[in-house]
């Protein structure tokens, strides 16, 4: 998805002129070099009333019940078609809060940098963080930077912890899922995973697939505002993809799930790439979609509601909770073939031929 705000942000935040090119161990020592690194423009870039105080921690006041989550981002490569690790580290945590029915407010930001990372690359990641935080309407309120020896990290690892206020009419509870509820998928599956795959060393293939990494909090807020407690469960199927999440739900709640293969939205390019590499798209990672388990009575209306919003135009009902086969998620093929969706064994590995 082309977003001009990203390009604008990149233009507004040119690379600062510095007397160092690489990040070295000294930049994580807490001494002069650390100050030099942070004062290089990092604080200015992420500036807000909390961060500007440069205290050891941030003092925050919230009005409602809070949700808190944390996530670490260790992807390779750190730049990929459609995004970078910085954007991912903001959207990932924001989305986890959104899936709790919360309105994300504040993030912490922690870097573990491998010495030798180009400052230019670090800056690009930071600009991504700034852009994503603005877009998701969250503030980075405190952070940390460590630098480790070469080989002890892979360029840069980022951890973010997020706090959000739970929407007053949200009632997200996996135990409320019951027979007759429907499963909505908010958009095309497998896009992020295939975008990463297309640039991974050894697997490069020509494609125009771009990651779908994006904030989902505005979508879930709108959905919760409209449908409140009819929404039983929200989850963004990141690592392990749609299949893993559905298999987990059926196991955790002892319900049966039927998924109609042909109803799952997927971009034809992404589907082709999966076919070529021999990967099952239901197990491929996503970063910009969520699934919603919702009361069957309002499922169609909620799907149409989502289809009118940006980022969820391809929303579709993909399945339902059924009485048969408790504990199992079953994928139904167009000719009536049925197969159980299991938890995957480790990472999907490309096949031989």
């Amino acid at each position, binding site marked *: 998805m082309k977003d001009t705000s990203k390009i604008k942000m990149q233009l507004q935040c040119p690379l600062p002129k510095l007397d160092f090119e690489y990040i070295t161990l000294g930049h994580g020592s807490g001494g002069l070099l650390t100050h030099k690194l942070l004062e290089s423009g990092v604080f200015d870039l992420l500036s807000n009333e909390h961060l500007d105080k440069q205290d050891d921690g941030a003092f925050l006041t919230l009005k409602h019940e809070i949700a808190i989550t944390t996530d670490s981002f260790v992807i390779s490569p750190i730049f990929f078609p459609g995004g970078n690790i910085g954007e991912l580290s903001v959207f990932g945590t924001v989305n986890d809060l959104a899936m709790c029915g919360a309105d994300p407010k504040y993030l912490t930001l922690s870097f573990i940098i491998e010495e030798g990372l180009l400052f230019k690359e670090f800056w690009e990641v930071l600009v991504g963080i700034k852009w994503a935080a603005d877009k998701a309407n969250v503030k980075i309120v405190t952070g940390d930077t460590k630098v480790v020896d070469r080989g002890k990290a892979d360029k840069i690892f980022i951890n973010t912890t997020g706090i959000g206020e739970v929407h007053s009419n949200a009632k997200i509870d996996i135990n409320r899922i019951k027979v007759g509820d429907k499963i909505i998928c908010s958009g095309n599956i497998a896009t992020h995973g295939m975008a990463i795959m297309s640039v991974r*060393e*050894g*697997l490069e*293939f020509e494609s125009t697939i771009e990651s779908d990494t994006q904030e989902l909090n505005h979508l879930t807020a709108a959905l919760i505002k409209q449908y409140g407690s009819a929404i039983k469960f929200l989850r963004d199927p990141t690592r392990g993809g749609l299949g893993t999440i559905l298999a987990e739900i059926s196991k955790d709640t002892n319900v049966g799930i039927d998924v109609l293969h042909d109803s799952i939205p997927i971009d*034809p390019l992404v*589907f*082709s790439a999966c*076919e070529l*590499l*021999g990967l099952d798209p239901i197990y491929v990672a996503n970063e910009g979609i969520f699934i919603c388990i919702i009361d069957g009575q309002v499922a169609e209306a909620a799907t149409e509601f989502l289809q009118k919003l940006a980022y969820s135009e391809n929303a579709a009902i993909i399945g339902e909770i059924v009485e048969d086969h408790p504990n*199992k998620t079953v994928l139904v*093929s*167009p*000719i*009536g*073939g*049925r*197969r*159980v969706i*299991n938890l995957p*064994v*480790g990472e999907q*590995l*490309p*096949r*031989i*031929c």
Partner: protein
Amino acid sequence: MKYLDEFRDSTLLKEYLAEIKCTVTRPWSIMEVCGGQTHSLVKHGILRLIPDHINMIHGPGCPVCVTPLHLIDKAVHLALDKNVILCSFGDMLRVPGSEKSLLEAKAEGADIRILYSPLEAVRLAENHPDREIVFFAVGFETTAPANAMSVLQASKLGLTNFSILTSHVLVPPAMEAVLDDPETKIDGFLAAGHVCSIMGIDEYYPIVEKFKVPIVVTGFEPVDLLHGILMTVRQLERGEYKLENQYSRIVKDEGNVNAKKVINDAFEILDREWRGIGTIPASGYELRKDFQAFDANKKFNIDLPKVREHEICIAGDILKGKKKPHQCEAFGKTCKPETPLGAPMVSSEGACAAYYHYSNQDAITT
């Protein structure tokens, strides 16, 4: 996706199914040679939809499954050498060796790279002149051209740090071995479409004549498979035995002439050991004398003790079509994809993995 959707079309599938039902009058055993075909049959629920009279027997066409145990041990041994970057197709990584898999070796610190093309390994060799790059070159005739090309390319570039650990196997001798086995009763074959797209179809005429068995070169999509089954059943019901080509949109009679030339330039045919089956005469490729500097087997001269297969695992019987995965006492119990006893439970083309992932799972306690 063009060229795919039309071969998964449910109306067409139902028509083929109905036609098969009308045609079949007696029990027939048909072997689909390729593991990719097995997976497609199970994944799309075709085994449950075809008439009971038709017994699909799953063939040995799974490259990962037939790669000998001692060769996997060799790959693991090489990978653990700090000077070596071992490159492999992804599928090989989880296959259990006698002590560990390549994935476990990777966790121990081995530098193992998953590649799609062996030519990437040549590039690695160029970029890492201080390291030995070994490509684990397994597969049937389908992967042979690219593997051959990697050696020709490395030779042209004058690289001395590139080699392949080869375990190339050939389909027609394996089909003959299966037919020669008195315990296996097969009435007809769906030959592996992709293999034929490289090699053409000529090598199958002698098998048809010698064993009086119908062979239909078949593709991998549901429509292909049902069409292939129908063509085979028609021959069987009429008492005919012919070579037919269902997959004519891909497979030309002469195959891919350029690919065959590349194979012939780099490889020669020799006897080859198949995991679970044993040695089959003239059933594999090895690098020609001119290219022995690129043969990891010779270059590294690793002498590892021969090890025995797991006692309970019946992978050999599965590969020869004598037994089905669920007839194994370990299936779904002690043998699962996360704790495999044999290779067919690991590979994306293995029959056991296909059964485990896609069918008969009510019997599985997870």
